[in-house]
C-alpha cells in the first residue's frame, strides 16, 4: 500500500479537483452539507493538501467525508477552480478500497447503497425504477405514490410508457443481452472489485457487531440497520 496522498493523487478527480486551495472558505459558504452537517469542505481541502498521512487516514475513517451531497455547488464558486466535491469522491473511493468506510455510521451505509442501487442496475438496467421505491421505505412519497405503486402497469400505460415490455419507451424491459453487456463492463472496469470490497468489509463489520447479514438482497438485519440508523451526532 502506497502513501495515502499518493493514492489520492492517482485519482483523476483528485487531480482535477484540487489545484491548490487558498482556504478562503467560499466553498463552505455555498455548501448545502455545511449548513446541515458538521461539515466544512475548506477543512477537507486543507487536510489533504497538508499531505499529513495520519490526518488523511483519520479523515477517510471518519463520518465527515460522507456528509457531502455531491451537488458540486462548490465548483461554481471556487476562485481557484477547485472542486471539493471531486476531492470527496476520491476520498470515498480510497476509504472503501481500504475498508475504512465501516468505521463510521455514515460510511457503513455504502453497503445498503451497493445492495439497493448496485443490485438494481445489474438486475434491471436502471438505477431507479418503481419497484425499488416501496411506500414502506419511502413514506415521504405520500398517498399519490401509494396509489401509483398499487396501479403501476395501468398508470404507466396511460402515460405512454412501455412498462416492462420489449422495445423502446419509458420503463421498458432491458433485454438480457444488454444486461450481459453491462455485466461485462462492470467486470472489465473494476466495478465488481469495488462491490466485492464493500461486501467483504461490510460482512466483517456485521459479524463484529453481531448483526445478521445475508449473501444478497436487502432482507437482512445489517441492511436495515445501516439504512435507518442515525445516532444524532451528525448535526445540530
Amino acid at each position, binding site marked *: 500500500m502506497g502513501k495515502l496522498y499518493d493514492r489520492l493523487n492517482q485519482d483523476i478527480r483528485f487531480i482535477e479537483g484540487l489545484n491548490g486551495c487558498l482556504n478562503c472558505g467560499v466553498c463552505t459558504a455555498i455548501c448545502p452539507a455545511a449548513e446541515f452537517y458538521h461539515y466544512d469542505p475548506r477543512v477537507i481541502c486543507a487536510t489533504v493538501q497538508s499531505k499529513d498521512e495520519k490526518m488523511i487516514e483519520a479523515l477517510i475513517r471518519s463520518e465527515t467525508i460522507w456528509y457531502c451531497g455531491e451537488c458540486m455547488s462548490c465548483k461554481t464558486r471556487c476562485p481557484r477552480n477547485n472542486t471539493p466535491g471531486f476531492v470527496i469522491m476520491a476520498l470515498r473511493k480510497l476509504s472503501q478500497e481500504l475498508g475504512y468506510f465501516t468505521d463510521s455510521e455514515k460510511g457503513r451505509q455504502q453497503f445498503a447503497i451497493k445492495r439497493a442501487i*448496485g443490485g438494481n442496475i445489474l438486475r434491471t438496467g*436502471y438505477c431507479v425504477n418503481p419497484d425499488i421505491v416501496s411506500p414502506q421505505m419511502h413514506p415521504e412519497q405520500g398517498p399519490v405514490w401509494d396509489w401509483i405503486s398499487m396501479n403501476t402497469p395501468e398508470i*404507466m400505460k396511460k402515460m405512454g410508457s412501455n412498462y416492462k415490455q420489449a422495445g423502446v419507451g419509458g420503463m421498458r424491459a432491458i433485454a438480457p443481452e444488454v444486461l450481459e453487456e453491462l455485466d461485462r463492463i462492470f467486470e472489465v472496469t473494476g466495478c465488481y472489485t469495488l462491490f466485492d470490497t464493500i461486501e467483504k468489509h461490510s460482512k466483517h463489520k456485521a459479524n463484529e457487531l453481531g448483526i445478521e447479514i445475508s449473501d444478497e438482497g436487502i432482507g437482512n438485519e445489517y441492511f436495515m440497520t445501516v439504512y435507518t440508523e442515525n445516532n444524532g451526532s451528525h448535526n445540530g
Partner: protein
Amino acid sequence: METEGKKRVWEEYQKEIADDHYFYVRSCIRQTFFPGSETTFLKILQNDLKKDVFEDARHTTCTGIGYHTDIVPLETTMTVIARHFALMTEAGYVNIIPSCVTSFGLYTEVLDTWRHFPEIEAKIREYLWKATKREFKVPENLVHTSDIIYKFRNRIKDLSKVSLINKKTGLPLNVVEHIGCHYSKMFPQSGVGGAEFPAVLTGMIEAWGGTVIDYPERRHCCGFGFRQYLVKANRGYSVSNSKKKFESMQPYQPDFMVANCPGCSMFLDRWQYTIAEMEGITYDSNGTGIPVLTYEEMAGLVMGYSPWDIGLQMHQVSVEPLLDKLGIEYKKEDKYLGSNGQNIGEPQKPMFLIV
C-alpha cells in the same frame, strides 16, 4: 426583473444547440416518477415540431446515481456512457440529448475529461471494446433535453393554446424556476446562461408569458444529495434543503415552480407534502401547496395538452389551482382514471395538505 445587463454579461454562455436529428437517452428518475413528461417531450418534438428523434431500446441507465453514491467507479460510468455513444454512432446520429440532468452533467464531465486527458479516452475505448466489441465517435452536439425546448420556445409560442397568464387578472403568473445543480454548476459553459444566471427555463417562462421570481435561495440545491436521500437515515438533509428554498420563495407568492431536473421536480413536490404532514405548514395561502411542474409539463400545458394525459395526477401537490389560473378546462372526476377510462381507485387524502 432587470435582465438586459445580465444578458450582455452572459452572452458567452449561449451554447450551440443542434436543430434536428437527436439521439434520445431517457432518465431513470423521470421514467419512474413523471413518465408522462418524456412522452410529452417526444410528442412535442416529433408531432408538433416535426423533428427527428431516435431512441435505441438497448440504452440503459448511465449509472449516474451509482456513480454519485460512490459505489460505481468513474471508469465504469465512462464506459457505460461510451456504450451509449456507440449506440448513437451505430444509428448514424451525432447529436445526443439526455433527459436526465445527472446524466447530462456526467456526459459533460466525461467529454471534458477526455479533452484534457486523451489517454483516459483511449483506455475507455479499450474497455468498451473488450466488454462489448463496440466502437464510437464522440457526439458533435451534447445538450440537455430542456435546452431543446428552450431552443424552440418561440416556435412553441407560435403553436401555443395557453399563456402563462392569470386568466382572471390578466397578469403574468409568478414562476419559480429551479435548475438542477448538475446542469451547469460543474461546467458553467455547458448551460444556457451559465451557472449564475441560467436562461434555459427563464427563456421558456418569459417567452410563454410568465414572470420569473428572483429569490434569495434561487440557486440552492433541492437537497437530493444522492446518498442523502437514498438512505432513509439521511433524509433530514434532503428535506431541510428544500425547506430552505420554500421559505425563501414564499414571500414572493409563486403561482408554481418549474424544474429541469427529474429529481428536483419530484423532491420539490414530495417534500411539500412531507413538511405539511410533519409541521402543518404549506408555502401558499390556501393550504394546497405550490404546484411543481416539469418543463415538459409546462410546455405541454402551453401547447394545450390535457393535464391528465401528460401526467399531472402523479404529483402529490395538486395542480388544479394552477390550471384554474391558466383557464385550462379539466374534469376533476377524470383525474385518476385508467387508460381506458376505467376506475382504478384514488389516492387517499393527506392529513394536512389539501388536495
